[in-house]
């Protein structure tokens, strides 16, 4: 029986010729990553394993991005646990405030993740790195602790779901719209326990940043991981960022997919997820009148350079609606610097946006932009569950940076196309 990309990577890391869906394997890990929330909980479990040091100081990565810069005393104590752990283990890749970026934007940018690798991360959006043709999945703190101690973990080989992309996306349609459209179609458990394998001629029409956004939200459909083919777009990005050697895998022609979903990219409209599930989607044409209190542009889903460029293109020379608060967070220090050099930060600030150093805080209702009861936020993040960004009586709508920027000007959810026509 032929294997998918995911199955081939897992077989290679388990030292097996072949693996089949449902098989339980123990696999070697190339990267084990955690953040200030999950490492703090993993450190006591790590000690309980009896390990004195992490399995490889070059392969365990710690990023203090969630409640850092320390949001309160409790967060400061947690960050200190992580700082002490990183220093004690002499980790090569420890990212603290100032060098820290949002993990899933930072690791690919720093060239620390590559095709063919097996990666676990103490963060559900670790599936992001599948955009580079890696097997990458989110785990909890106990799995993280064991991964850091042994460099291995157990996996159940997932069955696969094929997402075949055709066509070319229209103007103002990006990876976020494609993924919201897909999740709206298959549901928040539409890919439960399975790998999402992206294939088809439409893949070449998606930029690397589009692919990161799409793979990032695979967990929002319940998937174990997502994986994109390694093509010219991917190789160009790797040439710029990644200096370590890597191996790519291709699916066998007779690889087995439990089901296939076809998406014609040219038919995808800018898409918005309404409260309180990422699957509760509507095309921008059907959103109706939704006035806003806050707009957030950033996160591991949409805080990359293309996202910033898209927002800047719309906000340039315009002002955000007077009743709105608009927050823009470039995901890494490098992205922030490039935004400065390209004049985007000036554009954002002159439009009336607040611009901040990287942090995940706002996305998960931690700090930096918490919502009050009755408030409504349009956000480029990944989840709109009850109370996700603050009070349980607040609402979160998910969208692309283009829709977020256009809506920031209009004060309600609108399409960037509307703005171009001067209707807003």
């Amino acid at each position, binding site marked *: 029986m032929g294997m998918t990309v995911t199955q081939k990577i897992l077989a290679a890391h388990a030292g097996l010729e072949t693996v089949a869906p449902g098989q339980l394997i123990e696999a070697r890990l190339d990267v084990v990553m955690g953040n200030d929330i999950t490492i703090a*909980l993993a450190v006591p479990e790590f000690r309980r*394993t009896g390990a004195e040091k992490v399995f490889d100081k070059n392969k365990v990565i710690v990023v203090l991005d969630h409640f850092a810069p320390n949001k309160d005393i409790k967060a400061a104590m947690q960050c200190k646990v992580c700082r002490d752990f990183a220093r004690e283990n002499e980790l090569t890749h420890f990212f603290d405030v100032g060098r820290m970026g949002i993990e899933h934007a930072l690791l690919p940018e720093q060239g620390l993740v590559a095709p063919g690798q097996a990666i676990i991360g103490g963060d559900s959006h670790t599936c992001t790195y599948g955009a580079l043709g890696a097997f990458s999945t989110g*785990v*909890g*703190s106990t799995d993280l602790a*064991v991964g850091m101690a042994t460099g291995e973990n157990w996996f159940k080989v997932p069955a696969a779901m094929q997402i075949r992309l055709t066509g070319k996306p229209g103007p103002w349609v990006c990876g976020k719209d494609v993924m919201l459209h897909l999740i709206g179609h298959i549901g928040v458990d539409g890919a439960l326990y399975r790998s999402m394998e992206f294939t088809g001629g439409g893949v070449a029409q998606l930029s690397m940043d589009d692919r990161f956004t799409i793979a990032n939200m695979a967990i929002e459909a319940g998937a174990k991981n997502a994986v994109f083919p390694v093509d010219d777009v991917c190789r160009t990005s790797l040439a710029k960022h990644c200096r370590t050697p890597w191996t790519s895998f291709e699916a066998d022609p007779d690889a087995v997919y439990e089901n296939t979903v076809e998406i014609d990219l040219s038919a995808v409209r800018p898409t918005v997820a309404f409260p309180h599930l990422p699957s509760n989607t509507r095309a921008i044409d059907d959103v109706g009148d939704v006035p806003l209190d806050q707009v957030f542009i950033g996160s591991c889903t949409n805080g990359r350079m293309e996202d910033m460029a898209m927002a800047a293109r719309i906000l340039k020379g315009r002002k955000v609606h007077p009743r709105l608060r608009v927050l823009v967070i470039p995901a890494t220090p490098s992205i922030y610097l490039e935004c400065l050099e390209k004049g985007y930060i000036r554009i954002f600030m002159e439009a009336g946006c607040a611009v901040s150093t990287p942090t995940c805080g706002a996305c998960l*209702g931690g700090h930096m932009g918490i919502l009050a009861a009755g408030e409504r936020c349009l956000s480029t993040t990944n989840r709109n569950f*009850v*109370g996700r960004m603050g009070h349980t009586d607040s609402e979160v709508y998910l969208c692309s940076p283009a829709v977020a920027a256009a809506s920031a000007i209009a004060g309600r959810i609108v399409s960037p196309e509307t703005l171009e026509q001067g209707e807003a």
Partner: protein
Amino acid sequence: MQNARGKAFVFGDDVNTDVILPGKYLNVTDPQELALHCMESADPGFAKKAAPGDILVARKNFGCGSSREHAPLSIKYLGISCVIASTFARIFFRNALNIGLPILECDEAARGIRPGDEVEVDFDSGRITNVTLGQTFQAAPLPPFMQNLIASGGLVSYARKNMGK
């Protein structure tokens, strides 16, 4: 493994980790303190109402969303003896096994149990009894590997054994 018996608290589809343990409490690592906020966004009084041994019942995709182990920890340390759901989200399922929170997948039971029903769970056979209604349901047993994982005391003990510690 000892049988579980308690009163059922029933929730719906797609109960996510933000509802089980809101993000604002992720600056807490003490599981006893996390337990005070368990299910707070769905039912603010849950942590006070639930007694040790009680059983949490939900429908499809329980625990979807974040990988925060704080969510199953809050349930375990509140004293919930078992979570029964139609299906579990992948990371939650794994985390629950790793920390030793008993969970069972059984759609019929998830549909057949009402709030307040007295429920008994036999972990060895996977049999779930709604004592109040006199109904029994059969849950899918865990694969042997996962039973071993629980039997050896969770993933850390399992790893220690593998590391020869």
